[in-house]
């Protein structure tokens, strides 16, 4: 069925723009469906690039979120064209410059997940997998987590999420929440230098977080968006210039604390998230990883995720 449906990058731009204007674009992120309506041309152009591997969900009669990206209102809009993000008619934050409509939308969708998706524990982490064996990469901003996530996808790991690690408390599975990976400042050049295979969107300069570029999820990750993974490894990566690769096994209770308190809604979910995070820590070994060379870190993780190695490390 999917084969009959063209990827977004293969749609004629006019048709895509028309679908957007009719609010008949429903994006399947894996864990959630988001309906989008827009008339903004710069948004459609950038969207087609970074969501190129995705499909338009056909005849989706249900969406989790109903959003709109529209132009600014009033005098301000004439002097500086703007984009606004709406969810169910609510505008959660101030307008962006119109050329930055796509990062604005990405931010808006994150807001929707963060506020209205409490059926899952939302870990603040990247999640990747080999087969159904998932690695949860939790680390504070600035530790190089997004760079490592991007590089792992580019070396054949399946990307589930860059920002929202979606943990289902009922099944213990990790669900894809597959969005473009937001690369910031220095990591943009790192990924450009790393491979010429990366499909990158335009550089958005001077956003709240500095320069931002989006890395498009690859086809394999998109095609597996409905396949959850099992937590196998919890990793707290840290990039340090010139460092040799070192790992430190974390005591379970410390890993619990760092994973739980890094999550978006741990406190909100109470005992539900307590049990879910404890299950993850029970099932996984947890490590700190310090590295400077991406490929070295990635090969180490590949070995860690192969079953025998995980068992040996846990022994």
């Amino acid at each position, binding site marked *: 069925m999917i084969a009959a449906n063209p990827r977004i990058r293969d749609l004629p731009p006019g048709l895509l723009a028309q679908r957007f204007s009719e609010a008949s674009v429903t994006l399947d992120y894996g864990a959630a469906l988001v309906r989008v309506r827009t008339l903004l041309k710069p948004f459609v152009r950038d969207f087609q690039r970074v969501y190129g591997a995705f499909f338009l969900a056909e005849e989706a009669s249900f969406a989790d979120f109903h959003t709109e990206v529209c132009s600014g209102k009033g005098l301000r809009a004439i002097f500086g064209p703007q984009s606004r993000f709406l969810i169910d008619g609510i505008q959660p934050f101030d307008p962006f410059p119109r050329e930055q409509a796509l990062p604005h939308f990405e931010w808006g969708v994150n807001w929707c997940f963060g506020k209205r998706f409490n059926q899952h524990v939302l870990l603040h982490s990247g999640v990747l997998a080999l087969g159904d064996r998932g690695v949860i990469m939790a680390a504070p901003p600035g530790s190089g987590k997004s760079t490592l996530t991007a590089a792992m996808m580019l070396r054949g790991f399946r990307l589930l999420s860059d920002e929202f690690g979606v943990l289902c408390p009922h099944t213990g599975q990790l669900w894809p929440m597959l969005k473009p990976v937001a690369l910031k400042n220095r990591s943009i050049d790192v990924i450009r230098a790393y491979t010429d295979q990366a499909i990158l969107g335009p550089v958005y300069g001077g956003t709240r977080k500095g320069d931002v570029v989006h890395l498009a999820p690859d086809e394999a990750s998109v095609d597996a968006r409905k396949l959850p993974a099992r937590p196998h490894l919890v990793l707290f990566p840290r990039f340090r210039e010139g460092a040799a690769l070192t790992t430190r096994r974390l*005591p*379970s*209770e*410390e890993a*619990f*604390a760092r994973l*739980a308190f890094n999550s978006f809604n*741990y*406190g909100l979910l*109470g*005992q539900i998230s*307590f*049990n879910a995070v*404890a299950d993850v*820590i*029970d099932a996984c070994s947890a490590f700190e990883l310090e590295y400077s060379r991406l490929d070295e870190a990635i090969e180490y993780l590949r070995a860690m995720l192969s079953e025998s190695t995980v068992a040996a490390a846990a022994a």
Partner: protein
Amino acid sequence: MTDIAYRRLGDGGVVFDSKSWQTHILTPAAAIIFEALAEINEGEPVPQAQALDFLRDELDVDIDTPEMKEVLRSLEEMGILGG
């Protein structure tokens, strides 16, 4: 005690107190004390003096270090230890 959910994780443990919705992280030493007190508490907070005697005499724990005072205060908050 029914308000308390406890999970042993490795050598340490974690506790969820559904009265306060607080999560407590127990280091291996704290986990041993927690489990020991939970064993003898019979659904009621263990009286402070009795618990301290037990910790000192049976487990050979130095109860006067700042870390131990912190652990005891947490246990009191959870209702494992009497006031």
